[in-house]
């Protein structure tokens, strides 16, 4: 506490000497009679000098002492400090200054005003909000003084709004105009409400107020649109993550994997397990999430490999049977996880750098984890495209997809490629699970919610086209979020489902149909 006060004093010393004198003048009054004390409190309150806060608080708490020579000392736990300078002082022999109710009321009022210049940022912000709500022309000089010393942009902004709101209720038309102009330059719904309120009382300023409201409305509309856009992108990135693995197994291999959602869920549980395992290792705990990515890829990939080798390969060319089989396997995986971990949600904590909210330009609030997931999904997409395009495995995979017998004749072991491709797609689903564990509940039925959406994305984008999957997921995400405000979340989803079904009517092979002989099969 003492150190904080010293800091405040150092800041205060930089003030012009005239203000210091006024402060010292008024401060002395706190040691006088009840009348003088109340008057001094009022003066200190209007001066807007943060040095006055400590002595006035001390006075109201009964910790302000007066020496025989009239100077004031603040009693602290460790001794005392000078009320005027904040230097350490000896409180011995000084007697407590007494106050009455009148002084107490005056102190409370003065301290309330001084909160605007309090050393505590949160207190200043709260005071600015309070002044903004109370809206009285009296506060204008006080706010001016506070603004002169405020350095934090966020608090300055609130104070400016409060100042403008106070100016509007002033009697001077010039002041009013200045207030209206400031409010009109902001983009807050509260400023709009204040302007609308002022419209009724200021017929002569009608045109200016209307213009200011219109300006705010424009900015608000832009912000809303930008917010919707980001939400759409965010939903799109989730869809992309969920659908990418499917785009490989279904799109490239033509295998319907209804257990895809369960592989996503396995990835999310792997994240949980890695987090639990590394929790007590101080050096590794912060890296739990990055380490979960390869772990989830391995777990889900291995599960996929086992499923392909053990079951699916017996059913190639029989898509409906594959669908039923994989559904059954998904059901068993889900129940196994439910028995092992319980049906309730497991908590996966986000690392610090993924928490909180960021402000983009135009005041668009963006949750950090959604932004990370958006970036991650795009990077991940590029990685997969590169893997399929530039690696030996990718080349073999494309060869087998396009013309299996020729690929086999060229010496490619098609069975091995099938197994690895399926494992690859399943592993991708696992990685999607890592990302989804950050924004969704990690529970055994995590995956079921994504499976239908993922299929729609893949079918809409065009089976076998990764670019189509990208465009389809962001397209569907955006459409969904644009529809949501006026249709509600559920109906928007229903609309999108119906729209995709109608779209498939027109273009049964999706946005980006595969060309060539493989497409005819």
């Amino acid at each position, binding site marked *: 506490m003492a150190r904080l006060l010293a800091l405040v004093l150092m800041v205060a010393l930089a003030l012009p000497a005239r203000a210091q004198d006024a402060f010292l003048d008024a401060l002395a009054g706190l040691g006088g009679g009840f009348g003088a004390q109340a008057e001094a409190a009022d003066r200190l309150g209007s001066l807007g000098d943060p040095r006055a806060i400590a002595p006035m608080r001390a006075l109201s708490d009964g910790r302000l002492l007066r020496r025989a020579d009239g100077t004031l000392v603040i009693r602290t736990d460790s001794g005392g400090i000078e009320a005027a300078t904040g230097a350490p002082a000896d409180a011995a022999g000084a007697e407590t200054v007494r106050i009455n109710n009148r002084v107490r009321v005056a102190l409370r009022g003065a301290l309330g005003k001084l909160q605007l210049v309090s050393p505590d940022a949160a207190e200043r912000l709260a005071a600015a909000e309070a002044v903004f709500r109370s809206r009285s022309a009296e506060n204008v000089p006080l706010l001016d003084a506070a603004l002169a010393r405020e350095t934090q942009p966020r608090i300055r902004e609130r104070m400016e709004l409060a100042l403008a709101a106070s100016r509007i209720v002033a009697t001077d038309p010039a002041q009013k105009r200045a207030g209206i102009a400031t409010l009109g330059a902001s983009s807050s719904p509260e400023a709009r409400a204040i302007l609308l309120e002022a419209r009724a009382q200021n017929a002569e300023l009608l045109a200016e107020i209307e213009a200011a409201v219109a300006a705010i409305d424009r900015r608000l509309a832009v912000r809303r649109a930008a917010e919707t856009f980001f939400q759409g992108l965010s939903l799109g990135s989730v869809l992309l993550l969920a659908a990418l693995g499917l785009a490989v197994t279904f799109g490239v291999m033509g295998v319907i994997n209804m257990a895809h959602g369960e592989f996503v869920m396995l990835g999310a549980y792997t994240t949980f397990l890695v987090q639990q395992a590394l929790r007590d290792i101080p050096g590794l705990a912060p890296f739990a999430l990055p380490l979960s990515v390869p772990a989830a890829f391995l777990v889900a990939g291995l599960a996929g490999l086992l499923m392909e080798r053990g079951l699916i390969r017996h*059913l190639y060319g029989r898509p409906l*049977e594959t669908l039923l089989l994989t559904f059954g396997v998904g059901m*068993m995986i889900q129940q196994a996880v439910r*028995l092992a971990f319980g049906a309730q949600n497991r908590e996966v904590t986000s690392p610090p750098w993924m928490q909180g909210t960021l402000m983009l330009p135009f005041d668009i609030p963006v949750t950090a984890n959604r932004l990370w997931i958006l970036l991650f999904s795009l990077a991940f997409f590029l990685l997969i495209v590169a893997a399929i395009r530039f690696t030996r495995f990718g080349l073999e995979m494309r060869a087998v997809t396009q013309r299996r017998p020729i690929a086999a004749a060229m010496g490619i072991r098609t069975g091995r490629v099938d197994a690895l491709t399926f494992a690859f797609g399943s592993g991708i689903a696992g990685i999607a699970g890592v990302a989804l564990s950050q924004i969704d509940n990690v529970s055994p039925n995590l995956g079921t919610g994504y499976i239908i959406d993922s299929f729609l994305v893949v079918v809409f984008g065009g089976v076998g086209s990764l670019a189509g999957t990208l465009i389809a997921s962001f397209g569907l995400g955006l459409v969904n979020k644009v529809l949501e405000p006026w249709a509600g979340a*559920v109906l928007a989803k*229903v609309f999108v489902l119906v729209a995709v*079904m109608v779209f498939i009517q*027109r273009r049964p092979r999706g946005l980006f149909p595969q060309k060539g002989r493989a497409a005819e099969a």
Partner: protein
Amino acid sequence: MSATALDTPPSRLRLGLRAGMIGAVCLLAAFPVLNQLPETHALHVSDFLVSVSGKWICYAILALSLDLAWGYAGILSLGHGAFFALGGYAMGMHLMRLIGPRGVYGHPVLPDFMVFLGYRELPWYWLGFDNVAFAMLMVLLVPGVLALVLGWLCFRSRITGVYLSIITQAMTYALMLAFFRNDMGFGGNNGFTDFKELLGMPLNTGAARAALFYASLVSLVVCYLLCRWMTATKYGRVLTAIRDAESRVRFLGYDVTRHKLFAFVASAMMAGLAGALYVPQVGIINPGEFSPGNSIEAVVWVAVGGRGTLVGAVLGAFSVNGLKTWLTSAAPDLWLFVLGGLFVAVTLFLPKGLIGLLQGRGK
């Protein structure tokens, strides 16, 4: 009857199955009678068994309808539960209207949930449901029209196989989301319950239960005969040909879309009927009936019994549901493993289901 498999001399298996079916129907028909015997009697059938087998009969109708679509027309619908639920909702609306002023709030016309949600008057789509004939018409028409629209859109643009499956699954999923909404006017997630009477019979009496049981049993027999007739005619032969080689049948000049559409709509109507019979027996209908899991469970009944055989679907519905009823009380954790395992086992080892197993024996 034109050229069908039935023209060939009936095999021993076929004769055996036919005898078994007639025997099973007679046995089921005796259930409500045996239920009247004193509890100490050796042949007494418990209330539980009567009510649970009444449910199974409804499931068997659903399985039959699915077999018509999947087994004969090759349309693997993963959304047949939606038709079942729509039939159930139509019946539920009728039952809700019959409650009249006996609801908790005592409103003369509006069902309780509407009073609760602040409705002033009945929504237009509830009009007419107080009339039993109209309600029964809707039980068939609503699923039928939905199947007509969806089927027309899909079959016309030659969406087949897994694509069609996914679309039907998306349909039932979308309907589930929609019916969970309170402002749809269908009771939100609570659905309809607290039914009082049907056709003037109070529902909580043994006589009403027996009547519903017999109605379901008769419906099952009628639906079975209908399906058998449909699949045995020339129409049925074309349908089977479409299932096996759709393009070839189209090139031969048949209107594939119309053939498939007819089977799909008939199948949806049957599923709706099953739902309508089911709801008064269980006393509740809620959006959970639309969940994709229900539809896919129905698929496994057909797969276990043996698709494309009609008898198999009925057999599958009874055996899988019997297993489910037993396991969910004996070892509830195991049921989903068993159900999942059934999917795997049937697709890998028993592609023709239980009937296929019997056929193997019969040879």
